[in-house]
């Protein structure tokens, strides 16, 4: 007698579940898609690409995504020659590159770099000229930049770091960097080094700034996520994905995913500022 209503209610529940799922997930754009996306290029992009790839491949095993590094130059070369589907760059493409290969760029995040000191340090403002002199070893005492009489402990990043590249190009103007400064290998260890040492100065991604270190105002620019996004803070670069010609359906789905809310969450988790549509 009541078998019919029960079946109906189960069917109703199933339908509800499916619909509910479909509305909730950003990943649904990958339903029914199939194929491979090969990604190469900028190393700063790798954590974002990896997390997105993991989510997508778990959701739809028919899609395979490989992520490789190589640097921005390699990214352009590989996508241009058709060796990969998406080539990542940490800089805008030059006109020559665009014309030669017919590349299309998709900026998706801002990578801002802040200069930071220990919260105990009384210095909270520096000019880019002073920072240049500190990192070249010309200024070695905090009293020369308005602080206490104590030696400056400068920390830098490794050769492969995109953060170092932005800092070196945009703030030091590719100037000389002293050989003897300590090198740390990640944003995390930079934070630990600065938080522990009251005489330290270093630089790290704006997304990594927290209470135990103090971001310095540079040339009257306040390093915050908002200012980096609006362009008021200048020590930034955009991170781009590039495709050769217009993206295929699968590539487009991937790019849309990165630019969507899930992508924004991943981008923030990796320490960058999302450029949502």
């Amino acid at each position, binding site marked *: 007698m009541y078998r019919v209503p029960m079946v109906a209610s189960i069917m109703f529940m199933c339908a509800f579940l499916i619909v509910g799922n479909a509305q909730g997930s950003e990943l649904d754009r990958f339903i029914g898609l199939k194929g491979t996306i090969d990604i190469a290029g900028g190393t700063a992009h790798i954590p974002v690409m990896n997390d997105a790839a993991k989510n997508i491949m778990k959701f739809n095993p028919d899609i395979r995504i490989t992520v490789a590094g190589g*640097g921005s130059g*390699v990214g352009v070369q590989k996508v241009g020659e058709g060796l990969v589907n998406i080539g990542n760059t940490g800089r805008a493409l030059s006109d020559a590159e665009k014309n030669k290969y017919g590349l299309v760029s998709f900026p998706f995040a801002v990578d801002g770099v802040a200069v930071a000191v220990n919260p105990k340090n009384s210095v909270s403002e520096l000019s880019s000229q002073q920072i240049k002199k500190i990192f070249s070893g010309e200024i070695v005492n905090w009293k020369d930049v308005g602080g206490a009489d104590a030696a400056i402990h400068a920390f830098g990043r490794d050769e492969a770091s995109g953060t170092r590249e932005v800092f070196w190009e945009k703030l030091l103007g590719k100037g000389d960097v002293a050989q003897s400064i300590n090198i740390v290998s990640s944003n995390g260890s930079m934070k630990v080094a600065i938080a522990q*040492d009251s005489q330290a100065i270093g630089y790290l991604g704006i997304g990594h700034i927290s209470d135990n270190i103090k971001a310095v105002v540079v040339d009257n620019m306040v390093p915050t996520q908002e200012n980096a996004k609006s362009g008021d803070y200048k020590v930034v670069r955009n991170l781009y994905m590039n495709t050769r010609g217009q993206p295929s359906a699968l590539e487009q789905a991937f790019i849309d995913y990165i630019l969507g809310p899930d992508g924004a969450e991943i981008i923030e988790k990796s320490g960058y500022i999302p450029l949502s549509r």
Partner: protein
Amino acid sequence: MIEKWIERALFSSALLCSLCVTAVFGFLLYFSWPLFLDARGLANVFSWVWKPFAGQFGILPMMAGTFSLALLALGIAYPLAIGIASFTHGLAPARITKTVLGLVYFMTSIPTVIYGFVSVFILVPLFRDYFDRGTGFCLMVSAITLAILIVPTIMIALKTEMNQRSEEVCMGARSLGLTPAQELLWVLLPCSGRGLVIAAILGFGRAVGDTLVALMVAGNAPVIPHSLLDPIRTLTSHIALVVATDSQDQAYYSIFAAGLMLFLIMAGLTMVIRNLGNRFGQGKKRHDIPS
């Protein structure tokens, strides 16, 4: 029939192992080959200045860093290890011996990253505040950390040798009326020459090969240290720091050269150990025949 198959299985695994090692060496040589063909490039890599963005790719400061760190760590760890091995060899009460040995064996199972981590939060600030020179990330701190890491390696190698020798000589020593301390100092340690050398080389090899301690606490500045409080960069941490760069870059080739150097150092050490083992081994046989 079964024996034959076991023999074959063992032979093929041995063959596979040696093939792997040869392949690693081959690949290292293959990848760093472009460097050897270009005399200017070679001179560039074996120079004293590492400024990759100015086209200077010298890895000699890293060689200096590796050797000064490994030697210093060995200098700290070796006496400690000999002390522990001797102390636990009949000098200490049984219960203390057991505790100390248990502790040393336990130390071998602590991951390297823990040592590095503890060092960053305890030794580095201590050195920075006490000496007021530099950041505290320096040669001395990494040598101390590394020494703690290699003490068990050295001690266990030495202890194994001492246990073997002890069986041979303890009866004679006791019957001469030697106290345990006298036996250790005048009989056992001089008899364990091979063990003393092998333990030192093993410890040195471990110190040269370790990456994480140096990467975390040595400061990584590619300069030649002039003081114990100067930062250094080792070959291993150099590879770890540079491996993520653009693979088209010449900086990338320099890490193959660094890898090749490490491989050659380790191979040289292994050869010394084998050579010593054979020599002492023969000596022992000759000694054994009359008895």
